């Protein structure tokens, strides 16, 4: 059963979304169908196919989880989310890039810090000056 985790996940997802649609939204009438019908149909399709996958599916091949890489990338994005509006784009980008870089095993952090700094300035120039988006380079909290 553990090999069919993805099908189980999708089956649960289909059942949950279908339940939410059925209990919180209106079915309407045949002529003027309500907002529940369409998501209910889709949820049903996902549930039925996933159930079939759970019962009759082949043993799933799965790639080994790269924990370090996964953690580095997720932490990088989380750092960006938490800092972009508080400290400005340049320091936020540098911090996020360094955290992402930690997701691989080769060294060279000093060189990478210089590279990240230049890239952060370039990003600010591109998005702020060239594309006109209001992102301050540095923001003092």
């Amino acid at each position, binding site marked *: 059963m553990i090999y069919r985790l993805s099908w189980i996940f999708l089956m649960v997802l289909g059942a949950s979304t279908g339940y939410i649609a059925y209990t919180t939204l209106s079915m309407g009438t045949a002529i003027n*169908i309500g*907002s529940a019908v*369409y*998501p209910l149909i889709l949820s049903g399709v996902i549930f039925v196919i996933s159930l079939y996958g759970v019962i009759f599916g082949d043993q799933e091949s*799965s790639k080994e989880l790269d924990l370090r890489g996964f953690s580095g*990338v997720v932490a990088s994005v989380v750092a960006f989310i938490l800092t972009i509006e508080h400290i400005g784009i340049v320091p936020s980008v540098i911090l*996020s890039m360094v955290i*992402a*870089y930690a997701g691989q095993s080769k060294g060279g952090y000093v060189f990478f810090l210089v590279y990240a700094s230049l890239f952060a300035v370039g990003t600010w120039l591109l998005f702020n000056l060239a594309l006109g988006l209001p*992102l301050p380079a540095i923001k003092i909290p």
Partner: protein
Amino acid sequence: MEDLLLGLHTAIQPINILAVFAGVFVGTGIGVIPGIGPLAAIALLMPVTFSMDPTTGIVLLAGVYYGAEYGGSKSSILLNLPGTPAAAITCLEGYPMAQSGRASRALFLSTFASFIGGLIGMLVVAVMTPAIVSVAQAFGPAEYFALIILCFVAVSTIGGADPRKNFVMVSLGALLATVGLDIYDGVERYTFGTSHLLDGIHLVPVAMGLFGFSEIILSIRRNEHEQIRHRVDFKSMMPTLLEWKRSFWPMIRGAASGCFFGPLPGTGPSMATILSYAVEKKLCKYPGEFGNGAVEGITGPESSNNAAAQSAFVPTLSLGIPGTPTMAVMIGALMIHGIVPGPLLMSSEPVLFWGLVASFGIGNLAAMIINVPLIGLWVSFLNVSYRLLYPAVIILICVGCYSLQNNVSDVVVMLVIGIVSYGLRSRGFEPAPLLIGFVLSPMLEENFRRAMIMGQGDMTFFFGNAICIVTHVLTVVLLVSMLLRRPIARFVSARLMNRGNTKS
């Protein structure tokens, strides 16, 4: 013919040629950046055109539009990050081709196929606009519904994944698109009380999460051990004679599907590329190559994509109906110049209309001239150590998502979708069908509900005419062939094994 000559005379004016080249150059550059698509590029450059002659201004914006389509395929092939939904199909074959050391060839093929598709699209627009408009007008809610269902089933056949997995992903994408306010009833669906989700989920975080985020995690370890050095020379770029032969008919067929579906509002380019891919996969003599860098899987959809991009102007200019948000901005630009698109545009503004059509030919040539020499530059990015490249790509993804609404909620959405996508991809689920389902879902629901109203709740309304019936029959045929493919293959191989055992 006279009109086209008038248009050509207008298009070859030095100022208009300059506008085309500038538009294509800027559009390509912006299209390469993940998260920034043609709509953002056109919206940002529109104020620049206010002081220009209307023809020159529209020619510039049109150049940006299809330049961005060219650029979007670069990030699809090199980084597996589609710039547009239609470019998601290019990821399927282009990225594996790049990963196997043939990046420059993939880029050249996509550029050349786009050029051919764009040229054919231009000729079709010039010659067949009245006929195209009447066909587009024949498509009502029931027809659109049937067509999108066909696309959903066709999408299930893409790549090398199990069709059931693809179909679940399409349905999941369609369900994801229901998040937000239901515009018919004004009720919230799956927002969980969050104001950020009232407007629904934007396409960019979905695309970036599905492709960029998960691809980066999957690639880090792979590239730590092996990074293919990419050759960047003329020989590596040029397809072999066999590849040219294999590409010819897919380009023609792709252009045909692009010209047919492009004028259909909303989903023309996406539908055109999906169906082109599905057709090429069915017709290909080397079906085993699909999912691993089949040339037909690049040239057909790329040609289709560009042909659809050109022919999308037909309903925009001749009916005043914008088929996509990008075309809506184009209409806005026209109206700012005091030009009202509609059935009278061809007769009241022939210089603008035919000048624009003729500029498509020059623009496609400009895109070839600009893009082919730059292939070496794009491919050289792949020779940069991946450990330096991927943090930069993560930042571009994050900033691209953030810049949509200057809000971190889009980055959060990207993160959540990325994590789920990574989990599913590592278990053999393809991301492209989810994106396609997400894009097509609003139109599917809209046409479903409209058809139910028009048919007074009678389901036979969905089978009311020849277009619907033929489309539904094609859907059933595709579905049956998809479901029976594996059992038939098992049956045949079992028989062959038995025969082999008997002989021995």
